[in-house]
């Protein structure tokens, strides 16, 4: 092809997009280091290497009264030393390497007219952004606030990443408000006939924007990792001799009768034989990387529930949470107590907070007729709930349950 194209050097677009003096200063300073602006995309600005020189860059707001220059305007501007380079967002970028050339704008009041339409647009965008942000906060707050067990939702669900996401959005809104304020102030000064300095500080902006970009990148990667891991990490299986329960505590330990046997009931689902009476499930979330739900059912043939009507078929359900942040264990335990005991239990329960070795907190709740017991326990960053439908006492199982919480 014979084209002699110079290799372009990328730089992150991290000076505030609306800040005219800062952007002009940054481009001018880069040219003084031998990097000349050529083009941009969403994230990067591209520069061509050349001899360092004192040149001027000016940003002119594109508006009905100052459109992208057409041919006669561009050639006249060029004759006066100014070359139109590119449209950068709302601005036309001009370049001048002639120190004797007059400024692009020699009348501050006229320059302020070019900013009128953008100022209106920014005010509208700002209102819209603020409304959307408020609406999203209200939705999140309403969602978590309405839930009777918000910590359980937070720990096990996808809401975990809402908070860094909200933090990024709040920063972006604050940054946009600050940029709009500076833009409107600049317009006000120009309208009053006061020219502005084309030298402005931009290093703080760069530092802040790079920081937020890094935070947003980590947040995005974490979101991806979390979504991927929670989908691929999920597993559930029939409890058999080959695929045992992940928790070393079983219904057979509570029901000591020699006649006890596990009760199996198979059902076919999607060409798979599922045993829903003896089943284990593993789930992963960012705040609770280890979550087990184990369900075991059994039968003692020839024995009946108190009352003598129905055959005795005890069952056990365990929920185990290994938390990434141990301080969440206590509020999670409270939510679990509320969910399974306060919210779901229709029959009166006797509750007793116990002090037993191996537990930070331990609550035992037994239904009045003694056929249903619940145990809520935590130690360090591990939380356990036991829901047992049977006539035996869970108190006798405390050492085994404490061992479970030790990991």
């Amino acid at each position, binding site marked *: 092809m014979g084209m002699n194209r110079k290799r372009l050097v990328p730089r992150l677009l991290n000076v505030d997009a609306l800040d005219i003096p800062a952007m002009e200063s940054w481009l001018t300073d880069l040219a003084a280091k031998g990097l000349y602006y050529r083009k941009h995309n969403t994230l990067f600005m591209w520069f061509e290497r050349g001899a360092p020189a004192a040149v001027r860059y*000016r940003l002119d707001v594109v508006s009905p009264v100052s459109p992208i220059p057409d041919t006669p305007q561009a050639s006249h501007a060029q004759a006066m030393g100014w070359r139109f380079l590119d449209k950068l967002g709302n601005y036309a970028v001009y370049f001048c390497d002639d120190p004797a050339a007059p400024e692009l704008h020699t009348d501050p009041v006229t*320059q302020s007219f070019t900013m009128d339409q953008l100022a209106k647009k920014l005010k509208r965008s700002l209102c819209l952004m603020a409304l959307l942000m408020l609406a999203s906060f209200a939705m999140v707050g309403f969602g978590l606030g309405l839930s009777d067990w918000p910590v359980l939702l937070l720990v096990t669900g996808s809401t975990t990443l809402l908070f860094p996401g909200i933090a990024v959005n709040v920063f972006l809104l604050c940054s946009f408000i600050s940029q709009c304020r500076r833009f409107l102030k600049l317009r006000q000064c120009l309208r009053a006939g006061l020219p502005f300095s084309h030298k402005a500080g931009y290093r703080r902006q760069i530092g802040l924007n790079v920081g937020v970009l890094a935070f947003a990148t980590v947040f995005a990667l974490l979101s991806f990792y979390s979504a991927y891991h929670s989908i691929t990490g999920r597993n559930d299986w029939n409890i058999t001799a080959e695929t045992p329960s992940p928790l070393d505590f079983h219904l057979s330990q509570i029901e000591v009768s020699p006649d006890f046997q596990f009760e199996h009931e198979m059902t076919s689902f999607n060409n798979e034989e599922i045993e829903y009476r003896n089943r284990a499930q593993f789930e992963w979330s960012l705040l609770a990387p280890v979550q087990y739900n184990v369900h075991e059912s059994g039968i003692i043939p020839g024995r009946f529930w108190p009352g003598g009507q129905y055959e005795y078929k005890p069952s056990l359900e365990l929920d185990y949470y290994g938390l990434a942040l141990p301080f969440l264990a206590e509020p999670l335990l409270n939510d679990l107590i509320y969910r399974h005991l306060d919210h779901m239990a229709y029959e009166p329960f006797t509750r007793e907070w116990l002090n037993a070795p191996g537990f930070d907190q331990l609550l035992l709740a037994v239904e009045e007729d003694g056929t249903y017991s619940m145990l809520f326990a935590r130690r360090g960053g591990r939380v356990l709930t036991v829901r047992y439908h049977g006539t035996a006492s869970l108190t006798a199982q405390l050492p085994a349950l404490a061992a479970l919480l030790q990991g």
Partner: protein
Amino acid sequence: MEQKTWDPMTEPMFYVLMAFLEQPRCGTEIAAYAERRTTGRVMLGPGTLYTILAKFQADGLIQETSVLGRKRTYHLTKLGGARFQAEQKRLKLCLGDATAAEEEARAAAERAAGREGAQWA
């Protein structure tokens, strides 16, 4: 006449209108006219010039007369002429006030100097 955001006019705006008094002109000619007329005191940067032209055209003060190749020529409308005269009148009044004020100040200074001389004599 409706009050505009450019009322009163800035110097560059006034010279742009002035440039059309003699004849229709294009952008390059207007910039050259203002520079020549003010002996370089008023320079019209390209951004300023084309913004003024677009705004004046939108407000009906000037009108495009011809587009010949790269050259786009404008002429003053009746409204533009009236606006120029109004601005000129305002400036004359300003200048008249300034001249009168200056003369009064000079006369007052001379009277004061005369009284001081009589005291010493």
